[in-house]
């Protein structure tokens, strides 16, 4: 069935609304999104051609590229962005290490890989790689918000104390913690609704249905949440370090 015209139509509406409401920022977002998508496609192609290279490694390197591109394109080449990039990479890396350790320690009890029904590839790696990319977006959000806000405070008052910055930073972090984790949570579980309904209407038990279908999504959302919360103090300290560096220079 010819569906591409509708995909295209909705894509144009999206670009249109983003440009109207976002203006220059909107345009930059679209550009970074397009570049990231192309990069991802390219990275996956490499993986398929050389399957001996770990997918996690490929996605990790791509992840560095994604963060750099997204943040630099949208926020420009300045200390604010650099701080955000470093914070993003650290936050994502640490949360992934935690995820890996948890999977190891629990022998993956509770995760139903059967859900990855399409898979012809080593499922564990695909899952980890997917988690990396998923967390990256949320962590970037936290990192750039922290960095922008703290740098804005510094610009308003160049003599602001480190203590005041820390206090403001933690406050900002507390505000966004719940909101960003919610974004992740809903983005992941919303996709499972049709399958869950299907299972239930075919008389599957609730517990079985949920464990079969939500385990991957919940794991991703939780790891993303952990990344978000970790990035708050990480972003705070890194931004303060960059601010102090800037202060010393001027």
């Amino acid at each position, binding site marked *: 069935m010819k*569906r*591409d015209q509708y*995909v295209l139509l*909705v*894509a144009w509406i*999206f670009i249109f*609304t*983003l440009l109207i*409401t*976002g*203006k220059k*920022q*909107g345009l930059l*977002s679209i550009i970074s999104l397009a570049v990231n998508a192309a990069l991802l496609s390219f990275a996956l192609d490499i993986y*398929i051609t050389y399957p001996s290279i770990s997918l996690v490694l490929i996605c990790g390197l791509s992840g560095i590229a*994604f963060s750099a591109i*997204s943040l630099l394109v949208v926020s420009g080449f300045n200390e604010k962005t650099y701080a955000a990039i470093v914070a993003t990479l650290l936050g994502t890396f640490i949360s992934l290490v935690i995820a890996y350790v*948890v999977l190891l320690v629990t022998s*993956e009890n509770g995760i139903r890989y059967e859900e990855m*029904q*399409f*898979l*012809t*590839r080593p499922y564990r790696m*695909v899952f980890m790689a*997917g988690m990396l*990319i998923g967390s*990256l*977006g*949320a962590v*970037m959000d936290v990192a750039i918000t922290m960095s*922008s806000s703290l740098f804005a405070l510094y610009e308003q008052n160049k003599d602001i104390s480190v203590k005041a910055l820390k206090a403001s930073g933690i406050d900002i972090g*507390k505000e*966004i913690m*719940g*909101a960003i984790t*919610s*974004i*992740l*949570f809903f*983005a992941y*579980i*919303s*996709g499972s609704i049709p399958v869950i*309904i*299907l*299972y*239930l209407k*075919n008389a599957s038990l609730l517990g079985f249905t949920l464990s079969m279908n939500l*385990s991957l*999504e*919940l794991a*991703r959302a*939780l*790891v993303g*949440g*952990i990344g978000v*919360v*970790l990035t*708050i103090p990480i972003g705070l300290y890194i931004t303060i370090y960059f601010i102090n560096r800037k202060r010393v220079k001027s």
Partner: protein
Amino acid sequence: MNVIVLLAIILFLLMTVVGGKKGIKSFVSLFLNFGVFMFMIFFITNPDMNPIYITLIASVFIGCINLFYINGVNNKTVAAFISTMITILFLLFLIATVTKYAMIQGFGEEEIDELGVFSLYIGIDFTKLLASVIILGTIGAIMDVAISIAASMHEIYKHNPLMSRKDLFTSGLSVGRDILGADTNTLFFAFFGGYLALLLWFKDLSYTFGEIINSKIFSAEIIGILCAGIGVAIGLPIASGINAYLITRKREKQQA
């Protein structure tokens, strides 16, 4: 020990340490959100009820949990709540139109194999279900934009209490643009990560670009993601408008 349980415990500890009381509330709200989700599923399985109405009611509850429970009931959260609801209604209209014409509801050929044992004749309207999926997927981002705009605009108003409604609106828009970029990024990366497996599968089978775009699964996902992005994009002016209106109305009332 179960992976999910362990991860949840770690998240709870981190949220408490970093966020204090608010952190605990944030964690609890995740639970509450999940609860609403379960209720929603329960009601949707009833074929007599329209999934769209159920989703809207669920959105109201989710809005209350994330806005009023965590941040309290105040001018900002009320404005954010109203902005969220209006944005969802707009988005609903868009989704309904597109899904009707693009026929992307239900399951694609690729999924049918795995689901062969199940009867698909379960009396639920899959078109409406898809609308439900998209709205639920976006609601987090819409709420974030709404509350951020509300908070910023109230700050701006505090520093400039004599600002006109129009100026307030434009300043809201300009502040919100940064958030717009960050949130669309978060959403898109979350979706990319979730569907990495699918992308690999397509590549493995060497689907041509044309085949990918036309396949039901991919186009459903892409349209869903794009609608989510549109939801966030229109959430910005809606939130700015609502806040500008409410703030100036309050000022007019005080002066009267």
